[in-house]
């Protein structure tokens, strides 16, 4: 034990030295020897990508705000987006301009940070089919934009990707990627790798056939599209494809692990976050649940739904795949973010990918091969007793299988997962992951369902209740080298907003009932909190303004899947009302209301 620790320290020292020489900052390994695998290359005072960097660390080197002074944080300025639906996602800050994208109708704004009053440089209102509103399963959210080459790239709910001139707001191109008549919407934040914008589809509840695609930055032309289901040639599986586990190898598994042609409407969307490792040139993402939820319709593993996929960023070729939840019967998508870190584990540095799956396991995976290094529950669960390390497959509890009976009681976690779209953050200083989680359980009732294009293809219902302890969410710190929780802050509602980690030793997150909090990264002590205008489902970012001060910005604006019932009440000409979603979110209407606002804080 002692020898291992000494080894780690030595390793940490070496890594820190190597990295600090050329990159410094976020590239350096912290005292624990852990480092961000693909640290940002641009200035630390910006927020250039949805997840801060290609690794999705949501970590910033900024350190003006510390545990010692966080109590002095105050609201500096705010901005109303003019849109009331769920504000997932986050701003970008590049070169003293802040870029925002709203939920449908997906208006984008460029805000001048150099001028008092923060005037707009431009506002862009894209053409965006209204019918998409009712095709989106889980509110009309948008998870943000990407910046590259003087352009802003983002997705429209109606299945288009647009490029906008960052200087003028002029639309440069608009490419149709999905078809709402077949249930395809797009809600995810793209990333740009070299000359390609990478985009994935939503619609796992609508009988879609999920894909990831690359679009040429300059022309808007589609360069490749890899489906997540179907024949190998459509998935872009070739000789390079080497899954780590034997049961994941074979020809056309994306067809043969489905009955008949059901893979054509089998879901497996790619609506979550993308990561990229420049050294391996691999793009990582998770795929959604198989459809329909009624499992009688789709015996088999249903590849490659509920899987983590690694593709060559240039060609789209699938290099490895790991099916996190084979034959998913609980709606446990694997879309959650993959955070790329190099971690000291058992005396060696592993090129890791850390993934907090909806199914409740926190996975530490070898990102070069897809081997599961460890998988431990990070929330309460009862559907599985653990992950079989020989196969990577979860060991099932028979009575919690959703086809065990027409109605199955008390399955944990619920279909919202141990966490959902709300992204975690990683700090190389502490070596810990900061994870917004849900603590929900569900009953499951299967019913018949038929496919009708453009309508939901579900075939089950799953009312939710609070998990063990009665709290419905918890913000936790997680050590991915051992699979252990270090501390947690219990919350009355699911923590549906993302996390931000900073070099100042302060971590930030917001809650569904509208508290924005600064927390000591080392021990979870709440240092400061502010009641924002509406529940937070967005992800905080931090930047340095032209005045040299560190700012922290976050969207408030309740909605998203946790706002399903809330969203259902919305029409443009009606009074808005937060409604309680059955037993899932009791009393919420008392604590928050609709509103799309950016809040910006500083010392």
């Amino acid at each position, binding site marked *: 034990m002692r020898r291992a620790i000494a080894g780690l320290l030595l390793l940490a020292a070496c890594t820190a030295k190597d990295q600090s020489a050329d990159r410094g900052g976020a590239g350096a390994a912290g005292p624990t020897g852990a480092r961000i695998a693909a640290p940002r290359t641009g200035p630390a005072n910006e927020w250039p990508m949805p997840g801060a960097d290609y690794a999705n660390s949501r970590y910033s080197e900024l350190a003006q705000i510390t545990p010692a002074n966080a109590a002095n944080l105050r609201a500096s300025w705010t901005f109303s987006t003019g849109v009331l639906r769920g504000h997932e996602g986050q701003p970008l800050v590049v070169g003293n301009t802040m870029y925002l994208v709203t939920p449908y109708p997906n208006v984008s704004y460029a805000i001048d940070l150099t001028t008092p009053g923060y005037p707009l440089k431009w506002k862009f209102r894209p053409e965006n*089919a*209204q*019918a*998409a*509103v*009712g*095709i*989106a*399963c*889980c509110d009309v959210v948008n998870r943000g934009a990407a910046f590259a080459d003087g352009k802003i790239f983002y997705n429209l709910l109606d299945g288009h990707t647009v490029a906008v001139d960052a200087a003028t707001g002029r639309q440069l191109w608009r490419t149709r990627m999905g078809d*709402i*008549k077949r249930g395809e919407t797009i809600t995810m934040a793209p990333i740009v790798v070299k000359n390609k914008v990478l985009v994935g589809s939503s619609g796992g*509840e609508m009988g879609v056939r999920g894909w990831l695609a690359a679009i040429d930055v300059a022309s808007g032309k589609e360069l490749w599209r890899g489906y997540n289901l179907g024949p190998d040639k459509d998935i872009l599986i070739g000789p390079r494809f080497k899954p780590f586990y034997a049961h994941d190898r074979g020809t056309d598994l994306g067809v043969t692990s489905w009955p008949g*042609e059901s893979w*054509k*409407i089998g879901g497996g969307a790619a609506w979550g976050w993308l990561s990229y490792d420049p050294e391996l040139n691999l793009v990582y993402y998770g795929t959604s649940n198989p459809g329909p939820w009624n499992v009688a319709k789709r015996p088999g593993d249903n590849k490659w739904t509920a899987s983590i996929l690694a593709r060559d960023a240039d060609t789209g070729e699938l290099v490895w795949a790991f099916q996190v939840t084979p034959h998913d019967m609980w709606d446990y998508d694997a879309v959650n973010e993959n955070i790329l870190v190099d971690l000291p584990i058992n005396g060696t540095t592993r090129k890791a990918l850390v993934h907090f799956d909806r199914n409740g396991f926190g996975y530490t995976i070898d990102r070069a091969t897809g081997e599961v290094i460890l998988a431990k529950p990070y929330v309460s669960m009862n559907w599985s007793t653990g992950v079989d390390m020989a196969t990577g497959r979860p060991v099932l509890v028979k009575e919690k299988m959703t086809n065990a009976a027409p109605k199955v009681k008390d399955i944990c976690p619920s279909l919202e997962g141990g966490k959902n779209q709300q992204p975690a953050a990683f700090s190389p200083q502490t070596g810990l992951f900061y994870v917004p989680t849900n603590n929900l359980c569900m009953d499951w009732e299967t*019913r*018949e*369902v*038929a*496919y*009708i*294009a*453009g*309508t*939901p*293809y*579900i075939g089950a*219902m799953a009312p939710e209740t*609070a998990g063990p*302890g*009665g*709290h*419905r*969410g*918890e913000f936790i710190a997680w050590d991915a080298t051992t699979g252990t929780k270090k501390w947690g802050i*219990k*919350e*009355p*509602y699911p923590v549906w907003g993302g996390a931000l980690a900073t070099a100042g030793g302060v971590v930030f997150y917001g809650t569904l009932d509208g508290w924005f909090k600064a927390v000591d990264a080392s021990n979870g002590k709440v240092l400061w909190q502010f009641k924002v205008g509406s529940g937070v489902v967005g992800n905080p970012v931090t930047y340095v303004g032209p005045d040299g001060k560190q700012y922290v910005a976050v969207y408030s604006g309740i909605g998203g899947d946790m706002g*399903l*019932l809330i*969203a*259902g*009440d919305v*029409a443009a000409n*009606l009074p808005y009302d937060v409604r309680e979603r*059955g037993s899932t979110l*009791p*009393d919420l*209407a*008392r604590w928050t209301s609709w509103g799309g606002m950016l809040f910006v804080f500083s010392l």
Partner: protein
Amino acid sequence: MGAFALGVVTTVAILSTRDAESLTPGPRNTTPPQLADTARFVAHNEHIQAGLVFPRDSVLLRNPYEGNADAAATGAKLYVAYNCVDCHGADGSGAMAPAFIDGRWHFGGSPAAVYQSIYEGRPDGMPAWGGLLDRASIWRLVTYVRSLQQGKDVATENFTGKTVERTGH
């Protein structure tokens, strides 16, 4: 404008043709279409705009099943068979699409108005089912959907004095 006028005329023509069919109660086809059949049926009518005047013919748009429990029960089956349930929620509690239980009818709650919403579709993505469902089936759905309302819309929600157990904080 011309296209709109034509659309209205067409709609009336379809209703008139279908009127005869509705004399024989019972859904023409309660079996949901299979995969291969569907593309031609379902259209999300993006061209349908709010404010388009639907012909309010009181004879055409009287629910033949008003208050008929059997029709409502069949309507409940259609509600599942045509995937209404996954947008509007089990028992009409709402989800991707508006609820039916709260008395807030976004496009009107009269039988004729609900019929019209089902037939025409609505701009936020409600499909136009008039091309897929026969008249009797739509009226059965109308009967079921309207039966879900649990009360009138409430103007005041008073939260004081309520105690709801909250864990956390």
